[in-house]
């Protein structure tokens, strides 16, 4: 018996480009930037070298109830907002799936770091009794998945892959595996991150991983460009509703595309540095094509991880050339969205699926002079119409995690 196909029936997001899918996708296609100057007081207080970020376009508190905003860490807030949109989009309603056949997989890079830091300040300044009893459920990295699971009444499992910047993609990969294994009928899966605060910025800056192009925020994230100088920290969430094809067909659901295959590998090379030839990444892409039953020649588009670090971008380009070839047309959405860490793979997976659905590839911003080592066609300037049968989304994370997802037409 062949394993069931996995279809996508719902999408949700809140990102630096917009508070929902429509505004985010429109922002990507029209080449808007979600990056801006970071004007919080602690930027000056700590003399941070990084003064730019990709902050949410819509504050979560605008759409949440007051008590929800009070009880949930920002990372949990964005997860629930994206999940609500995706769930509504999928049209499953209150009884569209048995609770025992519904699972949630929401990845995150670090979870409730802001809560951890704020509560530590309270402990230090005002003592034990001022520490919130909600501290632990707010900071635990499985909190976003758990709150989405509570909201939807999911009893088929709630999971949280944590693999740094590959977490969101790994969540989609895990959902695919659960559906293919027949464990459940529906999985709500994606990634969430919201940690734009002093310590993460200081830590990433000390790694020399971040752009310091502070005078030109919108020009700061420059994947594949010769003048790239690191990533720009972003925040947000992306969530998909994935279903077994037969289940979606039985309820006559609208299918927006397929998560046709996945590949996950690890480098065992260095804790943070990418393996420079992209061998592990290449193996992940090859696995994502093999599990999808898609030939390299069928892949018209790659949504690149491309964070705009000097080594990472060219290693990824090498991986794409060796696993697929030099024909796929690339885009690098972090040029517009910033780096959403644990949400990146989910939001970019959604962008890849929409590119396949609409046969439109969004432009890469700030690509003034492509690094000659890239040797691939990267869309710049304006979105490009390309007939797409299959596309791949790459995601990599500190720790040597490589995840590739293959999306195909509905």
């Amino acid at each position, binding site marked *: 018996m062949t394993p069931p196909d996995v279809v996508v029936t719902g999408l949700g997001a809140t990102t630096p480009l917009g508070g929902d899918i429509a505004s985010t996708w429109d922002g990507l296609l029209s080449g808007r930037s979600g990056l801006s100057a970071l004007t919080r007081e602690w930027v000056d207080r700590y003399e941070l070298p990084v003064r730019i970020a990709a902050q949410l376009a819509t504050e979560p508190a605008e759409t949440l*109830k007051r*008590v929800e905003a*009070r009880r949930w860490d920002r990372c949990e807030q964005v997860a629930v907002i994206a999940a609500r949109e995706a769930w509504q989009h999928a049209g499953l309603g209150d009884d569209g799936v048995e609770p025992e056949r519904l699972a949630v997989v929401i990845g995150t890079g670090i979870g409730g770091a802001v809560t951890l830091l704020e509560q530590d300040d309270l402990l230090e300044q005002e003592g034990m*009794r*001022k520490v*919130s*009893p*909600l501290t632990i*459920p707010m900071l635990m990295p499985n909190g976003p998945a758990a709150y989405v699971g509570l909201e939807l009444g999911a009893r088929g499992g709630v999971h949280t892959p944590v693999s740094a910047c590959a977490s969101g993609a790994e969540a989609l990969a895990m959902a695919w595996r659960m559906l293919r294994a027949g464990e459940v009928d529906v999985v709500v899966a994606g990634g969430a991150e919201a940690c734009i605060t002093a310590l993460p910025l200081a830590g990433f800056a000390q790694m020399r991983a971040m752009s310091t192009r502070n005078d030109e925020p919108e020009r700061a994230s420059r994947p594949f460009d010769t003048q790239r100088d690191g990533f720009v920290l972003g925040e947000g969430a992306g969530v998909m509703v994935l279903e077994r094809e037969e289940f979606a067909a039985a309820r006559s659901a609208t299918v927006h595309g397929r998560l046709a295959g996945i590949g996950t590998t690890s480098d065992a090379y260095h804790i943070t540095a990418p393996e420079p030839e992209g061998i592990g990444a290449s193996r992940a892409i090859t696995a994502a094509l093999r599990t999808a039953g898609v030939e390299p020649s069928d892949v018209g588009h790659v949504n690149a991880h491309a964070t705009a670090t000097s080594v990472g971008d060219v290693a990824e380009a090498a991986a794409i050339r060796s696993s697929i070839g030099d024909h796929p047309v690339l885009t690098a959405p972090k040029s517009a969205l910033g780096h959403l860490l644990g949400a990146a793979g989910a939001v970019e997976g959604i962008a890849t699926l929409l590119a396949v659905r609409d046969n439109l590839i969004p432009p890469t911003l700030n690509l003034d002079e492509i690094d000659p080592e890239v040797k691939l066609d990267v869309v710049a300037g304006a979105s490009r119409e390309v007939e797409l049968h299959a596309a791949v989304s790459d995601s990599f994370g500190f720790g040597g995690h490589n995840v590739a997802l293959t999306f195909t037409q509905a």
Partner: protein
Amino acid sequence: MTNEEILSGLAEIVNEVAGVETSEITRDKSFVDDLDIDSLSMVEIAVQVEDRFGSKVPDEDLANLRTVGDAVDYVAKHT
């Protein structure tokens, strides 16, 4: 302080912590069964009660405050 003043202050705290409408917060209501307030929120409420009324609520006493009326009487007795 009158019991009415305590009730109104307590209602503001419960509204702030748990989002329950102040008009719902009456003496006969059970925190858990009627107002859907969990044990985590009860700890927050106890801290704010102490800040506002100056009456410390030890854990063993907190567990016995089943209804809003129980809490009002407790504060009246301990301020």
